[in-house]
């Protein structure tokens, strides 16, 4: 394995940890890693920040989201701006850290049986919920049983796929029995926020969404979905009382207003990105700390692979060659992205081939594009559009209504495809209609960001032929087989081989035109201290940081 890695020190370390913790087949390694992690509360020194002052307590942190927070139960963690507050209020057994390395949280340690069928978690003792009740194994069992019960129609139900009986031999041990090995599932169910079971059972899910009780570093004070979520420090939090007294998360839909609020000091951080040009400007300003991460979802043009014009992989390959993707980034995206080379982002370093030079790349090459189209039998027509057997090489790309940021990319692609005799029409439609149209084959193509494998690289939903989000109507028997193999294999080294091969097939078959990994700028005012120097994931900064940050009173 001569895979070249462009990684710096801390990330190398995290990769090793990933190996250990991801090493679910090797219970000893998992145990070691698990033990190595939890730092004593308060003992953790300030990470990164060179200008860090002494940690001080107090103050209110002002965060700005872009849309309303509909609810605060584990079931609401889908939209990221909701997840920040839900995970401030709750904890889960495991949680991915800022570099997307899974770490134990409410679990003190865990072991995985050799066959991958049993997970045994040892829980922290003396952990308190906000109402004073002690956290026990019963809360874990209740939470998991509630959200996986199809009766309760939760969006999380898929996270628990393959889990059989959950046992609680004592108050601090949880045994999860799998019906079949599902190596991808640990990071999903393991990160489900745990609710106070007696309270949740008493008030029900609907009431709970508005008045949650968790073990998190912050407890809910005020919740007005359209305006504000206000939480305050929980004195008895098991990792120690957080240094920040209060967090206010407000809803500010307009990105330019979020920027101004940061500049006036009315807010400390924008959870949802600013306009790219504003982020780039504030990155140069000493009054702000900007952490650059990359998106998990690839910006891509999903294609209906079943559409006769697009069903030949040479046509799709030709489109890749026809697009000058670096120019899209430079001219239309302020340079704030990197060209994508695979379906799995470079931020998931352990499994990703994205930066690997051995992986086939599609350089901008019009001649090659034309040659591939000729080879596929598409000959240039009089009107500049190629045709084959009387059919024109034409299809429609439906972009999201009002998506003024991405629309120019579609227009650029339209021109680029025209150069090689492909006619791409443009249309607009709301996102929900596009997603529905792609799954039932009524939409030919679109343009958005989506995740094709993330913390766990399993792409079942998007690349498996029967996946619920198979936007490309992609069908490949070998990919299906590899996905299944990946799910029943617990050794990460072995799994990696499968996901490498999936990426190689995706690159060869080009089910979708993968364009770029967007930079995601996380902007904080300089008074927010204790921030990491770098991170692989935007929201993980919050999920794992809020309880350790402090506000510089100066």
């Amino acid at each position: 394995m001569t895979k070249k890695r462009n990684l710096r020190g801390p990330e190398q370390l995290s990769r090793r940890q990933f190996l250990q913790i991801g090493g679910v087949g090797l219970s000893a390694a998992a145990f070691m890693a698990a033990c190595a992690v939890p730092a004593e509360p308060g003992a953790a020194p300030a990470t990164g920040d060179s200008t860090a002052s002494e940690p001080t307590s107090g103050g209110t942190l002002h965060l700005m989201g872009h849309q309303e927070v509909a609810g605060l139960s584990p079931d609401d963690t889908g939209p990221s701006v909701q997840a920040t507050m839900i995970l401030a209020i709750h904890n889960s057994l495991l949680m991915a850290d800022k570099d997307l390395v899974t770490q134990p949280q409410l679990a003190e340690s865990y072991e995985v049986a050799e066959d991958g069928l049993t997970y045994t978690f040892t829980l922290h003792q003396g952990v308190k919920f906000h109402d004073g009740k002690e956290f026990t194994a019963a809360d874990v069992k209740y939470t998991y049983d509630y959200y996986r019960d199809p009766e309760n129609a939760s969006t999380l139900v898929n996270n628990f796929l393959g889990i059989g009986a959950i046992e609680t031999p004592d108050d601090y041990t949880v045994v999860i029995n799998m019906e079949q090995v599902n190596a991808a599932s640990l990071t999903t169910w393991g990160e489900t926020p745990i609710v106070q079971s007696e309270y949740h059972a008493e008030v029900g899910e609907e009431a709970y969404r508005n008045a949650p009780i968790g073990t998190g570093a912050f407890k809910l004070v005020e919740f007005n979905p359209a305006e504000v979520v206000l939480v305050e420090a929980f004195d008895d939090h098991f990792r120690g009382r957080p240094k920040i007294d209060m967090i206010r998360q407000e809803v500010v839909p307009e990105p330019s207003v979020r920027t101004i609020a940061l500049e006036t000091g009315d807010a400390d951080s924008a959870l949802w990105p600013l306009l790219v040009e504003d982020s780039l400007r504030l990155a140069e300003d000493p009054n702000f700390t900007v952490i650059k991460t990359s998106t998990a979802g690839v910006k891509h043009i999903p294609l209906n692979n079943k559409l006769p014009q697009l069903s030949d992989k040479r046509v799709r390959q030709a489109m890749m060659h026809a697009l000058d993707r670096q120019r899209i980034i430079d001219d239309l995206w302020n340079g704030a992205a990197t060209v994508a080379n695979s379906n799995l982002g470079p931020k998931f370093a352990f499994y990703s081939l994205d930066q690997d030079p051995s992986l086939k790349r599609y350089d901008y090459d019009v001649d090659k594009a034309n040659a591939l189209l000729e080879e596929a039998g598409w000959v240039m027509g009089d009107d500049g559009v190629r045709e084959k057997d009387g059919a024109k090489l034409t299809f429609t790309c439906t972009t999201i209504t009002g998506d003024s940021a991405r629309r120019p990319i579609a227009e650029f692609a339209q021109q680029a495809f025209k150069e090689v005799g492909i006619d791409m029409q443009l249309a607009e439609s709301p996102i929900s209609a596009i997603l529905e149209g792609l799954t039932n084959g009524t939409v030919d193509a679109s343009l958005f960001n989506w995740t094709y494998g993330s913390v766990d690289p399993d792409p079942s939903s998007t690349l498996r032929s029967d996946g619920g989000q198979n936007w490309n109507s992609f069908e490949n028997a070998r990919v299906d087989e590899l996905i299944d193999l990946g799910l029943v294999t617990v050794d990460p080294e072995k799994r990696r081989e499968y996901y490498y091969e999936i990426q190689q097939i995706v690159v060869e078959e080009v089910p979708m035109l993968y364009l770029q990994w967007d930079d995601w700028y996380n902007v904080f005012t300089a008074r927010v201290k204790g921030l990491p120097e770098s991170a692989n994931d935007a929201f993980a900064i919050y999920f794992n940081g809020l309880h350790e940050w402090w506000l510089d009173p100066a």
Partner: protein
Amino acid sequence: MLNYIISRLLQGALVIFLISLATFVIMRMLPGDPVMLLLGEGEIQITQEQIDAIRAKWGLDRPYYEQYLVWAGNMLRGDFGDSLIRRGVPVRDMIFEAMPVTGRLNVMAFALALLISLPAGIVAGVKRNSPFDYATTIGSTIGVALPNFWFGLMGIIVFALMLRWVPPFGLKTWQGYVLPVVVLASEQMAVFTRVMRGATIETLSQDYVRTATAKGLSRQVVILRHAVRNALLPVVTVIGFRIAFLFSGTIVIEQIFALPGLGRLFVDSLYRLDYQVVQSLVVLLAALVVFINLLTDLAYAFVDPRIRIER
């Protein structure tokens, strides 16, 4: 008079019924599925069967006519149903939470607009072609022409970012009201001033005004007692129209200034396909417009005794 009011109310009820039906049909015709929007940015994975299970729980799998009848029946009893996206929260509570914000904004904006534009319009009409008249003409042309969102953003840049007089968003302090109210009022002001000026000029050229002047009344009495009272008639009509339109201005303003009012509720609910909330808001708004139109017509009779309401 009473018969007239009753017949107008019946007409209004028919209008509201048709609008409720149209809204319901349009919302269901909107492509897409609210359940998909719960899944966030592609991190949660779910199968079609699971989506169907959630839809069934929300009652979205029932036949359309049944969904409509249940909703309309509940509306008649004052029960607006529960929000889909904020499961379990009654739509009525959401509207009651948001209403005071929009109400306060609009009352203040309206009062400010009337307070400035009526006197300004009268003076401009009386002193036609004076510098003051030109100034109001230019001012109100700009007011009508400037889009609210641009004016709002410029206001934030100047008064929140550069001068630091007001907060850039929200209503945490009274200063938060200043910009949204002024921006909201600016558009109304422009319209009212124009109409008031035109009506004043129109009435000043009437015979009875000349008669009043000829019989020796002071100019002040002529203008205030004879001219302005008659000139108010078209203004009342326009005010009635504008109240109905206020809501649309509020949508933009609440979005920019991050205010938790009805406009934001409407936009958020539409984005997330929260059928119940959108339908209820549209019907309530329709009822409001019908009611205001009735009030406007009745106000004619009050302002101008020549108009007799018959039938």
